[in-house]
């Protein structure tokens, strides 16, 4: 029981990291970034590559990977997405293409077999007589810290207020002299960094293969839809709901069906309450 509780929390935490980044860039720049899962994959593969091939110490590799993914995200936004911003569907297409391309690159460079990303914590931790995977607990802790830090950043700093302003009314924000484009880059960087960090921290215990971006994408996506596109609290709440749902299904029903939980959640939400739990109205 405790295991389910903790593992549910871990899954929720990782999902929250992915979802918050995705919902952030949407809320601020109205970009539905289907390459978000690719950031996650790149985070894991980068860490793997740096440690396995270049023998870089783990902590350095982890930080470098997050930074590299953030830069990649910012570059993608600047070069590929920004010129297409008038059409949200063009953005969908181009980011999806980026995701597929990254997947192919990973496939070509690393092959289709799963890779082992080294863990920070290799030993189990004992809680109430139950043995828990140390890395998973670390992932939970890191996720909570990062999301908390992001939340504080947005609520307490000037830059954070600027971000909030843009997400609520981009035009008004521009009139007030807030440099929208620079903020988009920054937010994309943050978003990618969060996703990359999720890959780094969860890589050790979740599967690392070129198609990992797809599962991550679909699940993160479902969290964002259920929580409401653009709402960070919504994403966190939905992450808990979906994270625990998946854990319950895996433990008590059939592990094969965990993938379906998120898909069904997406469809139910879009049909019943498209705005999600805490989002804005989106009916035609």
């Amino acid at each position: 029981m405790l295991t389910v509780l903790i593992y549910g929390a871990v899954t929720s935490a990782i999902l929250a990291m992915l979802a918050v980044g995705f919902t952030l860039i949407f809320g601020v720049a109205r970009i539905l970034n289907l390459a978000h899962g690719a950031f996650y994959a790149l985070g894991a593969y980068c860490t793997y590559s740096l440690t396995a091939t270049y023998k870089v110490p783990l902590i350095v590799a982890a930080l470098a990977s997050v930074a590299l993914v953030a830069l990649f995200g910012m570059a993608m936004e600047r070069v590929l997405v920004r010129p297409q911003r008038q059409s949200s569907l063009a953005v969908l297409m181009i980011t999806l293409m980026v995701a597929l391309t990254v997947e192919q690159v990973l496939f070509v460079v690393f092959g289709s077999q799963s890779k082992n990303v080294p863990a920070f914590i290799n030993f189990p931790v004992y809680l109430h007589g139950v043995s828990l995977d140390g890395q998973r607990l670390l992932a939970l802790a890191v996720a909570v810290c990062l999301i908390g830090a992001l939340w504080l950043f947005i609520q307490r700093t000037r830059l954070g207020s600027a971000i909030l302003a843009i997400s609520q009314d981009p035009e008004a924000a521009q009139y007030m002299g807030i440099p929208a484009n620079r903020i988009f880059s920054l937010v994309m960087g943050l978003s990618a960094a969060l996703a990359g960090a999720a890959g780094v921290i969860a890589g050790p215990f979740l599967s690392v293969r070129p198609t990992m971006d797809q599962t991550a994408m679909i699940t993160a996506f479902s969290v964002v839809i259920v929580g409401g596109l653009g709402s960070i609290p919504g994403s966190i709440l939905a992450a808990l709901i979906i994270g625990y749902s998946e854990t319950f299904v895996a433990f008590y029903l059939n592990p094969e069906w965990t993938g379906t939980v998120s898909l069904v959640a997406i469809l139910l939400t879009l049909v019943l309450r498209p705005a999600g739990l805490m989002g804005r109205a989106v009916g035609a």
Partner: protein
Amino acid sequence: MGGAVLVGLLAAAPPLLHNQYFTGVFIVCAIEAIWAASWNFFSGLTGRENFGTALFIGGGAYTAAFFNSTFGLNAWWSIPGGIVVAVVLGLVVGFPTLRLKGPYFALATLASAAIMQQVAINLWQYTGGSEGIYGLDRLVDSSLGYYYFVLAVLLATVLVLSLIAHSRWGTILRAIKGDETACQAAGINVTVYKIASLALSAAFAGLGGVLFAHYQQAVTPDDFDVFLSISVIIMAYVGGIGSIWGAAVGGILLNLMLELLRGMGEYRLLVYYLILMVVLFFMRSGVVVPLWRRLSGGRSA
């Protein structure tokens, strides 16, 4: 007329090349062209981009598999069966999702196809899981014969959909794209038109799925894959959004390109995607239709 030349070329090519393998390539090209045309009919005209065409394709394909392989019916029954199933899927998905705004509709359709894919994998007792179902019969035994059959279906598809697109139905769909609210204010029951159009689009996509299943003589969950949905969209983009025949030609071109890249081994898909990205990025109004307009001296198509 240029169209006739093109059709002539398409008809003549395989026998001239006299190569079983290339005939197979052309068959797939023609099927993909059917899919692209069907997609363009709904999404190109209404502007509501359907990201889950694979749902209808897979629906048609698996129906063919069930009818022919699992239940042993004559292969020709797959055609009406696949169309009916695809239409039902179109109605089921269309009803709740068509009132959603642009990106949300796209995502709902994407999710629908993905769900179906999961279902196909998970219900392995009935669907053969990741392996799928095999042992379907060819509709027409000779490859060349199959090709001409598919080509005929393609021509019929383009003809029918083009006729409808240029009819009053098509005008209403374009008005929906122009301003849906104003369309309602003009007394048009927008929902009925959207659903009917999606169902029609689904019917042809499903038909293509049936033809594909009987050609491959097998179906797998990949028939529901997002890659398939995206490919179809890109074919329509390359052809020129809103042009039925353009999409068909786009489908043929892209598949030929994919085939030609076979020599690149494991880099094949990567190069393909990179080329697609370039096309998407620089040629927003497509390749085929603008090129055709330029070649035919700027007369409107």
